[in-house]
């Protein structure tokens, strides 16, 4: 049980700056995910929190007190590694017990031969065994305690690594891509298990992944990182619905957000393919902007385009069947480089023919506008309430 506070954490390896002044406050009991492309510094950050790496600048507090000078095990954190890092020569039981034997026995009581002299050792070991058994039962590992890690499946190894982390009742759980060595099906299953484990334990979880689906499905809050900085911190829905920058918008969501080139016309009105939209932004006319549209924001327009809805023409390239729904891939008419994706029900998808030209429409309120530098631009009058879009469109 502890909150974690990072302030201006910086780290370089030689001349490469890996972390650039990270500020992050993680609440007690929160499930916070660090997500970002590979190489953006997520592992370095979590390793600094664990104490495996030392920051060049900035400070770190766990549970309200500074821990910069503490060694990893003194920080009361537990870590699950991507490789699981199980001790290959020890049984599952011994793997899970190790943090406890280290904490509860003195050095001489752990040494070969010398430990036979200790009278209290047996009592301590019995206590450790029952604690290990309790953790193993929670993770359905009870029947595997005598096996070696090499004799376990990937999912079981993963659970042993979790057990080794849980057994000490740490204040903070750190996990560095713990699911990336599992096959797809097990990964989905373990997502649920981890989320439930977090709910049951109520401990602070800091979770690193490059997979935005993991970040979106499990976390209370997500910190999206890129090039050693946090681009946006917020709940999964905040990141999805109000991405702070083009990079966040592109990274979060599957299929990836559709990006269309647009320009700012007189009065800040946004123009898409030469047609003005019912959308105006506080930018100078003539500037190029990027319009972001989620695939579910698009829909087919039957009959004549217009009628109060923004539209553009497209040609179907490919249908992707996901079972419950389809993802339709379109090429934009006359623009080979840009394509868009649209989610559709099987019924709607059945009505679209390959290579047929269709009209796609969207509500301007659902569009994200990004300035040329990549920052999000709030449309005028839309910041307060989405309802204010209606009069704008009425005026169009």
């Amino acid at each position, binding site marked *: 049980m502890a909150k974690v506070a990072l302030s201006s954490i910086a780290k370089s390896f030689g001349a490469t700056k890996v972390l650039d002044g990270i500020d992050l406050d993680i609440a007690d009991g929160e499930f916070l995910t660090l997500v970002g492309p590979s190489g953006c510094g997520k592992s370095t950050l979590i390793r600094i929190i*664990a*104490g*495996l790496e030392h920051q060049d600048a900035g400070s770190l507090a766990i549970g309200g007190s500074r821990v910069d000078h503490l*060694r*990893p*095990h003194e920080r009361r*954190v*537990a*870590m699950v*590694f991507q*490789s699981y*890092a*199980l*001790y*290959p*020569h*020890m049984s599952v039981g011994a793997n899970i017990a*190790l*943090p406890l034997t*280290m*904490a509860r026995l003195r*050095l001489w009581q*752990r*040494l*070969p031969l010398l430990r036979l002299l200790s009278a209290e050792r047996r009592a301590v070991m019995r206590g450790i065994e029952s604690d290990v058994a309790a953790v193993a039962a929670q993770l359905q590992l009870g029947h595997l305690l005598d096996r*070696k890690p*090499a004799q376990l499946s990937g999912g079981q190894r993963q659970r042993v690594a979790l057990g*080794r982390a849980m057994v*000490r009742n740490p204040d903070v759980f750190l996990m560095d891509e713990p699911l990336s060595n599992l096959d797809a099906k097990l990964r989905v299953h373990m997502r649920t298990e981890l989320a439930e484990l977090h709910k049951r334990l109520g401990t602070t979880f800091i979770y690193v992944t490059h997979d935005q689906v993991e970040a979106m499905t499990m976390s209370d809050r997500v910190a999206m990182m890129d090039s050693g900085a946090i681009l946006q911190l917020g709940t999964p829905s905040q990141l999805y619905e109000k991405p702070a920058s083009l990079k966040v918008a592109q990274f979060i969501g599957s299929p990836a957000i559709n990006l269309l080139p647009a320009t700012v016309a007189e009065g800040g009105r946004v123009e898409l393919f030469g047609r003005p939209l019912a959308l105006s932004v506080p930018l100078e006319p003539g500037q190029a902007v990027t319009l972001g549209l989620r695939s579910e924001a698009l829909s087919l327009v039957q009959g004549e385009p217009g009628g109060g809805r923004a539209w553009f023409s497209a040609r179907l390239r490919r249908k992707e069947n996901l079972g419950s729904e389809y993802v339709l891939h379109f090429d934009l008419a006359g623009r080979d480089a840009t394509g868009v994706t649209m989610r559709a029900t099987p019924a709607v998808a059945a009505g679209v023919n390959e290579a047929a030209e269709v009209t796609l429409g969207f509500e301007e309120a659902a569009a994200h506008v990004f300035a040329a530098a990549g920052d999000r631009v709030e449309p005028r009058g839309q910041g307060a309430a989405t309802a204010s879009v209606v009069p704008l469109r009425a005026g169009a």
Partner: protein
Amino acid sequence: MTLALASASGPAPAARRRLRIERVTGLGFALPAFVLLLLTILLPLAVLLWLSFTNYEFGGVDMDWVGLANFRKALADPIIRRSLVNTLLYVAIVVPGGVLGALLIAVLVHRRKRTRSVYEVIYFLPVTSTLIAMATVWQFLLHPSLGPVNGVLKWLGLGPVAFLSEPSTALATLAVIGIWQLLGFNMILFLAGLTAIPRDLYEAADIDGCSGGIDRFLTITWPLLGPTTMFVLVTTMITAFKIFDTVAVMTRGGPVGSTEVLLYNVYLEGFQYFHTGYAAALTFIFLAFILVFSAVQTFALDKKVHY
């Protein structure tokens, strides 16, 4: 029931034929390797065994079948017994020194980042230099009156020690030289073993509270070096058991037989006295020991050190 019986009576003729062809093909592929094994190893061994049952003398024109007489003589021969004891004593000093010393150096060198390769080269030098050449250096170093070792001892107030000509110190001195020559090679093997231990195991151990040097060594390094240690142990034992060159050039088995070792006696019997049959029997005894060392590795310890 009848169906089960029919299927149990063996595969169909076609399948049986295919099986036979497969078997012949397999033998065909194995044949070249087997012939090579036969010609280079098994045949010489058979000749050796046959010789050990005769009283053949090198250069002689005839020989007699003497049965086990050579072996009986060897086991009763006090010189052979003494040389066997000396050899085992030598092994008993060189193995712990050469294995534990190399392990210690490897652990220390492994931690060095930039200077590691320098240390590797330095410790490996004795391996690359021929022992015969280095023996002269040792002889000078250990010389009772001229050698710097005795110079230091004298400076410390200790009397000069005639390391190689004193029966009580000669074998131990040879053992130290043996260790000196083995350390580098064993260290390289241990370094390879250390490098193969994943770094994140040490990091996991750090987080689990296993961060002291002794704990880390006992919990991770030592167990995970098991297979390497096993290999180093057995090769060191065999190398030490084959001690010959330092004895031949530095002591010739003396003083008063204190450094007579098994292989040196084989050499004397076979190449100085030309008792070829007797030397063959001694060689067989020698090989029996080597076999025991290898068997210990294969059967007794191999299972325990792998995980």
